[in-house]
């Protein structure tokens, strides 16, 4: 049974290898990829079901007992995120054929895509710090492959910066793991946690903790490390942007969440207080960025940052409610960011431009697109009863319970500005004088087919909001679980 867990990482790897051989057969590779994605989705759902009924699954790879071998830890948090990843992946894989050029498809798009999924899933599931580094590299390498796909001028320019920044932070990552290994003599997260608690997280460990934070925060785009993010995210194809926006920063956030609830919890007065301040700055500066531009893709890309701020807020507040809020927000944000990137990609496609100043009255020709965008805006801004609200409510509750007034006010202000930054697109792009014909009439057929994946993603966010009762109790358990790292340790290390 526990081997099924590994299959959720290995299956995309296999899919990547298989699709690589069919890169010239356009139709075959499409159908295959869609099949593989759906199978993986089913597989992950089964694993999720197993975990939710039987509890955390620990897979000791090669049957070497923890902490010596690499363990894969399938707890509810990890597997839920893997499932969300696969949902996003499924939406993207069905959107891709209409969105990509044939050339992009034939230059291993699907292989990179599956490797990205594999890397992201691996990062969510692994219980080993060095293995986490390896999965980071897998997903980064896949993202390098995806971001350069197409070889445009701007694309190469921005990719270069993206690769350099990530390379820099990867090297910091591996060095920091070495420092930690020197102090506690282990790279297994459970054992590290145990040992860090045993020595009451001495000063050197807190210092190392901050280095870990910076490593992950660079990926997660927390203030003041997010500079690299917005531009590289909008240069590739919308599918790639959607995958990046939905998954990459979230892996960073997940890592912070995991490491700072499991391992470094001895100096929360210092570390987590820093997080709260950074969270507030992240929200405000991110949304200021979103207001600064008229490029609709860039507006969405900047909106990744305040969402990161929200999630950091929960980690900083560090209570059951707040952590549940972070998790709920995380799940919601993965889905909605994917939907939004696909949406603005499609809007730019039908409008023939991503410059808001050149758009007008699109809703008269693309009403569905317009209303989808409107709903997506509400979800993003956290208007009830959509899913963004649930996470935000919990975060505010958690924040007020600890009287962290400053960050709560920052979160409310940024909610308003998020709404403003997004509704501008609706008002200026969709509303307005009805044109006689849409800008590119020939594109409406493809556009209709590209709308379906977005519809699925949006219905999930609506379901996550209106039907929160079906999801929240298990998220609440995850929050409780994160506050009690001993459960994790005991499930991995059996004395």
């Amino acid at each position: 049974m526990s081997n099924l867990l590994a299959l959720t990482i290995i299956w995309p790897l296999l899919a990547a290898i298989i699709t690589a051989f069919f890169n010239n057969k356009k139709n075959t590779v499409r159908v295959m990829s869609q099949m593989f994605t759906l199978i993986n989705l089913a597989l992950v759902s089964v694993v999720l079901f197993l975990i939710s009924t039987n509890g955390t699954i620990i897979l000791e790879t090669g049957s070497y007992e923890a902490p010596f071998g690499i363990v894969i830890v399938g707890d509810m948090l990890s597997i839920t995120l893997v499932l969300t990843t696969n949902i996003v992946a499924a939406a993207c894989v069905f959107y891709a054929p209409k969105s990509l050029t044939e050339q992009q498809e034939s230059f291993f798009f699907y292989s990179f895509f599956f490797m990205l999924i594999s890397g992201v899933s691996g990062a969510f599931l692994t219980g080993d710090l060095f293995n986490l580094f390896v999965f980071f590299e897998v997903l980064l390498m896949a993202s390098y492959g995806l971001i350069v796909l197409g070889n445009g001028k701007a694309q190469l320019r921005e990719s270069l910066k993206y690769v350099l920044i990530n390379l820099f932070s990867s090297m910091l990552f591996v060095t920091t793991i070495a420092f930690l290994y020197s102090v506690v003599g282990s790279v297994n997260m459970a054992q590290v946690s145990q040992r860090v608690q045993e020595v009451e997280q001495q000063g050197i460990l807190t210092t190392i903790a901050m280095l870990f934070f910076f490593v992950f925060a660079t990926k997660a785009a927390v203030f003041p490390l997010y500079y690299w993010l917005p531009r590289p995210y909008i240069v590739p194809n919308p599918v790639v942007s959607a995958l990046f926006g939905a998954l990459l920063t979230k892996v960073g956030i997940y890592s912070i969440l995991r490491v700072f609830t499991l391992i470094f919890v001895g100096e929360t007065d210092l570390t987590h207080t820093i997080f709260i301040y950074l969270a507030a700055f992240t929200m405000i500066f991110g949304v200021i960025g979103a207001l600064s531009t008229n490029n609709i893709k860039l507006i969405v890309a900047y909106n990744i940052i305040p969402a990161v701020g929200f999630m950091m807020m929960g980690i900083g507040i560090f209570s059951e409610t707040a952590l549940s809020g972070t998790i709920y927000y995380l799940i919601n944000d993965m889905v909605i960011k994917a939907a939004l990137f696909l949406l603005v990609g499609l809007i730019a496609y039908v409008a023939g431009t991503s410059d808001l100043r050149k758009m007008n009255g699109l809703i008269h020709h693309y009403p569905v697109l317009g209303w989808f965008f409107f709903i997506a805006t509400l979800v993003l801004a956290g208007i009830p009863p959509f899913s963004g609200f649930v996470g935000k409510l919990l975060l505010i509750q958690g924040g007020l319970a600890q009287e962290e007034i400053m960050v709560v006010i920052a979160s409310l202000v940024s909610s308003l500005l998020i709404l403003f930054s997004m509704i501008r697109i609706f008002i200026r792009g969709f509303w307005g004088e009805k044109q006689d014909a849409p800008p590119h009439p020939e594109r409406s057929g493809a556009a209709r087919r590209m709308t379906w994946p977005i519809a699925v993603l949006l219905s999930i966010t609506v379901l996550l909001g209106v039907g929160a009762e079906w999801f929240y109790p298990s998220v609440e358990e995850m929050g409780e679980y994160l506050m009690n790292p001993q459960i994790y340790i005991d499930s991995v290390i059996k004395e």
Partner: protein
Amino acid sequence: MLLAVLLPFIIAIFIPFLSKWKHKLHTGFFVTAVPVVIFIYFARFIGPGFEPVEREYSWIPSLDMNFLFYLDGLSLLFILLISGIGSLVAFYSIYYLHKSEQLGHFYVYFLLFMGSMLGIVLSDNVYVLYTFWEFTSLSSFLLIGFWNHREGSRYGALKSMLITVFGGLSLLGGLVFMSGITGTASIQEMMSQQELILNHDFFPLILTLILLGAFTKSAQFPFHIWLPDAMEAPTPVSAYLHSATMVKAGIFLVARFLPMLSVSEWFFIIVSAVGIATLCWGSYMAVRQTDLKGILAFSTISQLGMIMAMLGFGTKAAIFAAVFHILNHATFKGSLFMIAGIVDHETGSRDIRKLGGLMTFLPITATLAVIASFSMAGVPFPFLNGFYSKEMFFDAAVTMDLSVTGIAATLQTLFPYLAVLGSIFTFVYSMYFFFGTFRGKANIDELPKKPHEAPAGMLVSPAILVLGVIIIGLFPDLINKPFIEHAASAAYGSENVKDIYYWHGLSPAFIMSITVLVFGTILYLSIPKWASIYNAVPGRLSLNTFYDGLVERTERYSTIITNSYMNGSLGRYVRLILVAIVVVTFGTMALTGGFTLDFGNVSEVTLHEVLIAVVMVIAAIGTIIAKNRIAAILILGVVGYGLAMLFVLYRAPDLALTQLIVETVTVALFLLVFYHLPNLEPHHESSLTKAMNLIISVGYGLLMTMVAISAHSHKMFDTMSSYFVDNSYKLGGGDNIVNVILVDFRGLDTLFEIAVLGIAAMAIFGLIRLRGKNKEE
């Protein structure tokens, strides 16, 4: 009851289908049925023996978010207003909106609004209340933007949304705060533990947050500026949302929390001062407007201010008057909006400068208008309901006798005067509205259409409302006992009963009414003489200018701020990131005492190792200094080979081998790539940049070194490696422990390490081969 609230939403889903037949039958007919049904359903509750009803339907119990409905007198008053006026407005809209309009959209938004508004007034659960609250803002946004091809419509929609959602979010903060303190999401239960909230350290903050929500929604000064621009919406919407119902949501909220909040003196100061200020400013500004709907918008603002002020007084009489006036205002203002709509519809203009003398052309409309506007002015006729509540307002202002000191006491003495002042202007604009439109000289030629009386269907709704004005005026007891009393008691928190009379004798309030009448008439007649005062106040310093500036500046400064650091320069990004890492980590190290230097646990220093190290350092610095590109690459190779030698010395043969191969290939690749690149212009850096770069890089290197040394000095546990040594052969079947770890103990790492190489290969292949589309090649 849940069904009643959800009914509009359910019907809204079917509207897009119904509107397909709109050419046969106007969609409005279906829609009118909805509020009528709701009205009848709730009208059953009216009666002297009314008792609050509570219903609970679960939705998200684990978040404490349930449809907890609490129907007391206050909610009942609002529900009947929402459904009653809703029915009339829906019916009116059938004649107002032509079938060629996007009726489907209109009625969907309309129903969304109606359902949400019902939700607000019924919800006892704060989160559900907030949900509905935001939904009214959204549907208002969509309705204002209904004619979105107009610039003004888009502008007004955005403005109303930004201001009301701002208030909504602030309300959310306040509600969550209160529910956190009391541990419940039910308003009733919160109020039963009011000491917890009132004595909380953050009570002033909570009060501010809640009031911001109420003030923005109810268009109180200085947040009122969105309401005049909301007049871009179709007139039925203005009548419904922007005068009778939605803008009273803020009033409702304050009334709902009144029994608890009014204990605080700050509540009195803020609410009544803001209310009075709104009353005076709104009525003053109304006289300046030229658009009929503009007059009505400011008039609504001032009337809302008056109600808010009465709630702020918090006395028994004031609250009773407030509740009574909510109803009265809805009747006369609703009908006035519909009349403005009729005038617009029949003449094609709402500009009061072009209108005039319409009495002869629209006699019925004019009759309705005179009653409604005189009621609004508070003219002391027994058949005008506006007079009753206006006089109660004066009465409340004069008889208010709170034992307060300081600012509150000053305000208390000032209020009666301000009340009269505001009412004088109210009188002026009421007269201005009626006489300007219907009397005077008719200039038919300037109007886009030739005026004639409206169709009967259009007159029905305003006529019913005007009839309401008269009936309430003549027979106030008809609604008092079964209805108003319950609402007033609910808002006051305990029994609040009063008899409504026309004649009170020569009370101060009556004298105030007469004062208003006299001065109002004088002022109205002399408008041309003093109207120039508007050039000075507000002149150019209006709040609108402030809002526009704020929005425009938000975008402009966002651009400036963002572009100041997000300039696409990699060097800038890396510098900023490094500074953050170095400063925060050093800070952490200093705060936690993380640095320790321990020489006890180090291996001996040998000369040849030191020599290698020195060579490597020199080579590393050489990469910076070397001018020639090839030289720099070769020097980099020296560092790599030096590292390989260290690997040999430090007992890592596998590493040394790998490093040698990798370094060789890398150097070759470097040479290959940079040999092919054209030689480009030299890159000069200013010495300041150089110095900055030097400081940053040294800082980072120093940080890493110090953490490394400290980490090495803190070896607190045995490493896990003894396991590998013990089991390498036993479990892994190999002598080379490193190899066994790689392929066996940590085989997963290696599998994915190979995968990384594979992807890299594919990506490189793509980079080299995929260039067909690029024209610059």
